[in-house]
């Protein structure tokens, strides 16, 4: 095997100009491939200069029509959609090493992002979020007023590490709302956004004056302070880690600057009992969920961590008193065989209902692997993950990633499976001792917080549930309401709406079909809001021409 050593010197992009230094280095090694990315770390003075220069370009950005901007971005789309575009070819190689995903998967993900820059899609996106894109250029009559969307000004994009598509997406939001944009890249993935914006620099040098993509050390607290203090920032889009987001949020609130938060989130899948027993549909659902798992290797906020499979429809009680049901659910979790016998001697209505639930629960626990059970679904998913790993494989794991997967497997085998709480599914390969491509753990009880963290890098937990309330209760008990985002739900529309209502009331905001968790729909809000609307100032003339005529008459 030939060793591949790649060295890249990334520049800082400041209003159409390049700064080239190697103050920082990101080094990654995957088997025979080694990469070293050097990039500049700007001083406070340099950041300040970049922010001042940007502000000066705001008028230029304001005066360009939105259709001209869309045309420029469409040229960038045309460059990137070409598989032979040199920067794209380089990006496929580099991103594969940085993220640990195969080139095929990177190509797939790149295409998804690039599509957003296509003229038709941009107009669709703008239209769905701003209603009428002309609001961005002129005063548009709306009822008895004229409405116009002015840019906020200078937007700071605080970017996250390894979700490489976030940089271009975030900047796109700022660009198509006619703002000028300052992106702070993450030291863990400095590459893609720089290369992408370099293409914009190549397409239109004048337009490049409205963009800066730079890095400075997070420890430079003074930089954030003067950016706000000297009114060099008018809005913030923050991605990534909780800590950096919460610091920036406090600062923005202090200075009264608009803050759009895209913090860390979790996503899940739910298979309702609506189609249990329909093997064909379940096979399809498992195929689609496998796709959701492998795209981004579960590092995205939209990736599923836990799959909840409903094993039995809710029982139709005469008295569906919620508290009573909750008590029953609680009791069910601790059922022991001898308790069952003891309970059987009591004859009250409550007890007989509880008994019914308990025996059904026991029946579920003893259920053999069928497609109508969570463990059966785990089996189906294992087949699909094996297949999808062939056509959307990962690239070589780093030593630490492989070790992490093996450690997690041992944890579940020794700590959970051995106590009878579940079963592990791993790829079968007769020639090798173990293959770390993917892992499924069927967990017979509701997950704990640590289980959510373990579900990353093609590692998924499947857990059964009976009542929808169990998932609600679990979210509350885990205190993760603030962090839940996307749920794929497989069930009839009536059930989907019912579940979506309960879950969105708790905090979730996107509900998709299995296989579409990572698909961005233009009309859908992101994390509960429409970002483009938030990046403009809505201004109005509160009278029409006829009002003026009336007035001056």
């Amino acid at each position, binding site marked *: 095997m030939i060793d591949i050593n790649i060295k890249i010197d990334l520049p800082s992009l400041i209003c159409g100009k390049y700064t080239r230094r190697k103050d920082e280095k990101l080094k*990654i*090694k*995957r*088997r025979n491939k080694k990469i070293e990315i050097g990039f500049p770390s700007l001083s406070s003075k340099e950041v300040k200069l970049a922010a001042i220069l940007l502000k000066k370009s705001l008028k230029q950005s304001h005066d360009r029509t939105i259709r001209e901007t869309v045309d420029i971005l469409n040229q960038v789309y045309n460059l990137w959609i070409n598989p032979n575009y040199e920067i794209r070819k380089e990006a496929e190689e580099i991103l594969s090493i*940085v*993220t*640990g995903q195969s080139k095929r998967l990177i190509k797939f993900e790149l295409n998804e992002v690039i599509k957003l820059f296509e003229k038709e899609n941009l107009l669709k996106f703008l239209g769905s979020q701003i209603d009428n894109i002309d609001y961005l250029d002129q005063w548009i009559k709306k009822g008895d007023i004229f409405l116009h969307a002015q840019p906020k000004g200078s937007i700071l994009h605080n970017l*996250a*590490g*390894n*979700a490489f598509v*976030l940089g271009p997406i975030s900047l796109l939001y700022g660009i198509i709302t006619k703002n000028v944009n300052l992106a702070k890249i993450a030291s*863990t993935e400095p590459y893609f956004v720089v290369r992408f914006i370099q293409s914009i620099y190549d397409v239109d040098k004048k337009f490049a004056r409205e963009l800066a993509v730079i890095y400075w050390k997070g420890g430079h607290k003074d930089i954030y302070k003067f950016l706000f203090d000297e009114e060099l920032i008018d809005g913030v889009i923050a991605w*990534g*880690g*909780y*800590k950096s987001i*919460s610091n920036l949020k406090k600062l923005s609130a202090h200075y009264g600057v608009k803050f759009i938060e895209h*913090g*860390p*989130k*979790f996503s899940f899948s739910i298979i309702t009992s609506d189609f249990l027993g329909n093997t064909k549909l379940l096979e399809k659902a498992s195929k689609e969920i496998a796709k959701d798992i492998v795209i981004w*290797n*579960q*590092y*995205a*906020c939209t*990736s599923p*961590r836990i799959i909840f499979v409903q094993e039995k429809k809710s029982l139709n009680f005469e008295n569906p008193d919620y508290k009573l049901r909750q008590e029953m659910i609680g009791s069910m979790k601790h059922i022991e065989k001898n308790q069952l016998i003891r309970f059987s001697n009591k004859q009250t209505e409550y007890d007989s209902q509880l008994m019914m639930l308990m025996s059904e629960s026991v029946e579920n626990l003893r259920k053999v692997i069928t497609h109508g059970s969570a463990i059966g679904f785990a089996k189906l998913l294992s087949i699909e993950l094996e297949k999808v790993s062939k056509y959307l494989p990962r690239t*070589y*794991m*780093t*030593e*630490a*990633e*492989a*070790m992490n997967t*093996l*450690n997690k497997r*041992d*944890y579940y*085998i*020794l*700590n959970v*499976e*051995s106590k009878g709480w579940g079963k*592990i599914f791993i790829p079968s390969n007769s*020639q*090798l*001792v*173990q*293959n*770390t491509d993917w892992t499924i753990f069927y967990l017979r009880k509701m997950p704990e*917080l*640590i289980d*959510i*963290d373990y579900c*990353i*890098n093609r590692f998924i937990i499947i857990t059964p549930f009976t009542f929808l309330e169990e998932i609600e209760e679990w979210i509350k008990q885990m205190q993760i309401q603030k*962090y839940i985002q996307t749920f794929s739900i497989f069930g009839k529309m009536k059930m989907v709406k019912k579940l979506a209502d309960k879950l969105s009331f708790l905090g979730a905001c996107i509900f998709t079909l299995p296989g579409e968790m990572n698909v961005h729909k233009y009309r859908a809000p992101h994390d509960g809001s429409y970002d483009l609307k938030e990046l403009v100032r809505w201004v109005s003339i509160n009278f029409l021409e006829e009002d003026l005529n009336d007035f001056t008459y």
Partner: protein
Amino acid sequence: MVEIEDFFKMDDIYSIEPEKIEPLRLEIIKKAAMHHFEHCTPYKKICRKNNFNPVKDLKSYQDIKKIPWITSKSFKKSYNLFKNLISVSEDKIVEWLHSSGTSGDPSYVGRDQKTLDRFRVAGTRSTGLILDRDRFQMGIVFGPSPEMVKGLTFALGMDIWTKMCDNSIYLMKERREKGKIPIDIQLTIKSIKEAEAKKEVCFFGGAPALAYFTLAKFHEQTGETFQLNEQSVGGGFGGGWKTFTGQQISKDQFRKTLNKILGIPIKNLRDTYALTESDIVFQECEEFVFHVPPWGDIIIRDPETMAPVKKGEKGLINVINPIAYSWPGISVLLDDTATFNNNGKCKCGRYGKTFSDVGRAVGADARGCGAMITDLAEND
């Protein structure tokens, strides 16, 4: 039927070609694997999970790569499993040896008298046979006395090495404090001067970073150097290559500095690879590669496929340890990596498997926009 203790008694053990010793080693590996399979329920579960039964699946030496492993992390305190990872009844455990837990999560391994006895003999033999010497007149340890850190694997290691010395001095008298070298410098210099004057053959052990900084600082301040007996040896370090600030000291830099200050020949400054989750101690030879003693084995595995790597390739270390009796250490996959060098004759003239470039498994700390509970908990 060969017993592991028979291996310890053999004198010329590093001069036997691998193909001659492997059938004998297979016997003791199989015996150990069967013992853990029968007496440790969690290990049996792992074996069953891997469709492995030592009775029928260990037919030739090539089959040892099939022995299912336990990951070293399973012995961490946080996993709360270590008490179940024993192959004897709990009352037989003499000591729960543990790592220092610098990461905040120490490993615990239960050892009975039989395992401890084997550990001591094997440790002394592997060091002695590679260093060509098993007696020293003086032991100078850059670390605490075994009594001070009872229960730590480090203490057992130091106990083994210093039992090879007529007289031993422990230079760490107090617990570590941030930014401070906790070594008694006056005692260090006094001991070295005494050994120099008496021309005693010394054994230097302990934490290499402590030795390096203590001596380098002394030399920087005084310019003084020593000329110890050239048969003196630096070894038995067993980790601790990082400074207080997390900076790694290169072995080359370490050897050059100690050679300059103490006068010990560079070829005598050799590292030892030892850890809580292994009873086998690996000693560097004068070619600076680690030798696997004949009573155990290692398999370096490709992190991607987990298949054994080829000569010259790097991978995760899987220790095959038939010494372990009270705990299922027969096959442990470590968080460490190494390069597989050879399985034949080393340049030093000894036979057996060798490896080098030991380090921690590394990789990108890939984080996307997906939340991690651990991050949220730290900041809530």
